[in-house]
């Protein structure tokens, strides 16, 4: 069944919050972002919210998104801030490689050995959180306890998703060339 869409609110510069009526996701609210204004990739183009858990009105939703955005930006370094402002994604360095945050369920992981994987990890529960809060949650785990992040994230290389832990390459310390003879 194709759901009917009801406009809930217009958000300047972001898009339109619509409520899905009927179908599998009846009651969910989705932020519809016009293609020209969107830098989202992957399957999710805006926040999906479970029925009854999102702020009840558009103004509260906008306030929540703004507050989450302010918190996330305050945690970013200058390079991450620039990327987030321009492209709505940013990279997080870990001892095992870099992870790109910005598209739900589709986090690019560039391992130290050059291999690239796609990861999926989310706060539990996540559906009531503004998107920026999801990134704040994942950013802190990646920066402070990356081992825990990689232990639970699911991943794919190619088309098949696999349960975590994500295969990571151990960090090899740089050994001084003490054995080199002059």
């Amino acid at each position, binding site marked *: 069944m194709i759901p009917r869409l009801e406009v809930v609110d217009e958000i300047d510069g972001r898009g339109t919050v619509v409520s899905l009526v009927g179908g599998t996701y009846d009651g969910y609210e989705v932020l519809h972002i016009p293609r020209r204004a969107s830098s989202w990739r992957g399957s999710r183009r805006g926040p999906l919210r479970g029925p009854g858990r999102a702020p009840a009105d558009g103004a509260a939703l906008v*306030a929540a998104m*703004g507050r989450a955005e302010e*918190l996330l930006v305050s945690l970013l370094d200058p390079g991450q801030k620039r990327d987030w402002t321009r492209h709505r994604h940013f990279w*997080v360095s870990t001892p095992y490689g870099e992870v790109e945050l910005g598209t739900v369920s589709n986090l690019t992981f560039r391992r130290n050995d050059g291999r690239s994987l796609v990861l999926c990890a989310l*706060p539990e529960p*996540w559906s*009531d959180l503004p998107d920026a809060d999801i990134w704040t*949650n994942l950013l*802190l785990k990646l920066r402070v306890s990356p081992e825990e992040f990689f232990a639970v994230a699911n991943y794919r290389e190619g088309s098949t998703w696999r349960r975590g832990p994500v295969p990571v390459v151990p960090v090899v310390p740089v050994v001084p060339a003490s054995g080199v003879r002059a």
Partner: protein
Amino acid sequence: MGTIRILDSSGDTAVAWDITDTETVRAAEELFRRLMVTDKKIPFARPLGASSDTAVQIDEFDPRAEEILFVRPIAGG
């Protein structure tokens, strides 16, 4: 003055304490314990407004902390 910020559907909910006011410190400590033990949320402390590079995961309430962010456990999606 310190603040606990709990990520939620409103962005976050903030609860402040004043280190010179034992009542607010006690209330913040109780909240900290409940969020961590009962709600299984994860606390990170950082100097106010500092980037994630300076954040540390903590397991006890520190009244000298400037800001404590409570996030959720993560799971494979």
